[in-house]
């Protein structure tokens, strides 16, 4: 059963700030969904290969050549806080 501590831990991993009420509601809803999902335990999957993709394509390569890419200004244009050619973020290193 998923605990409140699990919810808080997962919210930190997922970079989601949840209010107390939100976290409690999330715990209840995740518990219900996980209880449903647990029906997969009824099946025997011993020796079954996992499927990560429906179509068996492997190692799609192209020549290692420089190709045109989008201009830097176009990629910066949508940033909430651009700084010249860069993205500005809050300070991450202490003084």
């Amino acid at each position: 059963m998923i605990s409140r501590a699990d919810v808080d831990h997962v919210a930190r991993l997922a970079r989601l700030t949840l209010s107390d009420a939100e976290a409690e509601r999330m715990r209840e809803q995740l518990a219900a969904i996980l209880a449903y999902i647990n029906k997969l335990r009824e099946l025997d999957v011993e020796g079954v290969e996992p499927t990560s993709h429906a179509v068996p394509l492997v190692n799609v390569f192209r020549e290692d050549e420089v190709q045109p890419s989008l201009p830097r200004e176009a990629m910066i244009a949508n940033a909430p806080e651009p700084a010249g050619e860069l993205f500005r973020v809050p300070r991450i290193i202490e003084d």
Partner: protein
Amino acid sequence: MTTDLTRLTMHALAAAYRAGEATPSQATEAYLARIAALDTRVGGYLTVTAEAARAAARAADARLAARRPLGPLDGVPLALKDVFCTRGVTTTCGSRILEGFVPPYDATVAERLAAAGAVMLGKTNMDEFAMGSSTEHSAFKPTRNPWDLSRVPGGSSGGSAAAVAGDLAAAALGTDTGGSIRQPAAFCGTVGLKPTYGRVSRYGLIAFASSLDHPGPITKDVRDTALLLGAIAGHDPRDATSVPEPVPDYVAALDGSVAGLRLGVPREYFTEGLDPEIARAVREALEVLRGLGATTTEISLPTTDYGLAVYYIIAPAEASSNLARYDGVKYGLRVPGRDLIDMSSATRAAGFGAEVKRRIMLGTYVLSAGYYDAYYGRAQKVRTLVKRDFEQAFAAVDLIVAPTTPGVAFKHGEKEDPLAMYLNDVFTVPVDLAGIPAISVRGGFSATGLPIGLQLIAPAFEEARLLRAAHAYEQATPWLERRPELS
């Protein structure tokens, strides 16, 4: 001429252009006028690109006048789900976190439609990040079903399906991850096709669950689906999962006979959760197909009942990874914070809606240390079993016939419980897990006058077979004669 151009299918509109009975500008103006008059009530569009549409229509006018059209889609007014990046046109994916985002490039499907001369009318509403089955989870507004405005259009491509059903676009593109093309097509009485995984490029499609996302057409009839699929299908080097298979002439494939076609009817789809009216409609459809010379047999897809559980592990797991990019740095919303983690966490808390948060949490949980094998690893193995079910079935039958949804369109606010909402996709999800093509066509009406969806499922890359059978059924039934009363 007096015909309302917005009522025409794409192929009828193209024929009218060729016969000189209408022009792309006239059709585009007719659609823009209808959108202006009615879309406040339907809510199909998030963005209407009127000026760009007029310019594209004028260019198509000139090509048609010179008798040099680019092809059968030249000058046809279409809509794109707001999940597709469109250069210079706001693309939100139904989310506050992307409010105001203007992509610097086009999705491959948008590029191909533009190259075919299609006129884009605008971007359609959707459940946020394509997570939902009702289009009630758009951050901006709900979409309403043109057949009954108190009901949902289905989702997540609800805006596209409602726009096509309400004659607010000649056709539209949607995406299907767990049923998001077929379920709204069923609820709105349109045709909706989910192609084989890799058949249509995902480049420029805002990712939800990368191993399950399929772009595809939503149209007024099967011939239009064949036309639109032909225009968007094919290999794209910019999508590494795009498959280099030749694209057949889907329109030419419509004319074959279905005599001798072996149809399988999965017994697991006729459970107590299925609305008896829908069960009856499917059985009547089988009768029609038998009358055309097809044979039917009962088959078994034993893992049907586990598909949804697999889906609700794999899709959220992939989503939790794909949506990590919305961190308040590169695009979209930013909420200030005292450090980088605080800024990202506050941005995501403010920018994502409840359903998206729930799936990110679920996906992060099933991938986290200690749970990976029990959930994600096991789900991937059961996905193999689901795929194997279909492979075994297709050893004995050519197509599978099933209901698209367990019920008809429900009322707004009727399914508040997330799990109740998820159960809508019980008949569509297994097909996404297997990556095989499926189509939903109009299969009749409920006593209350709501459309019922009939689903046909084919082996990988057999879209032509799917379209041929769907077309034969459509031609043999009167269902397309009815249209919703929107005025």
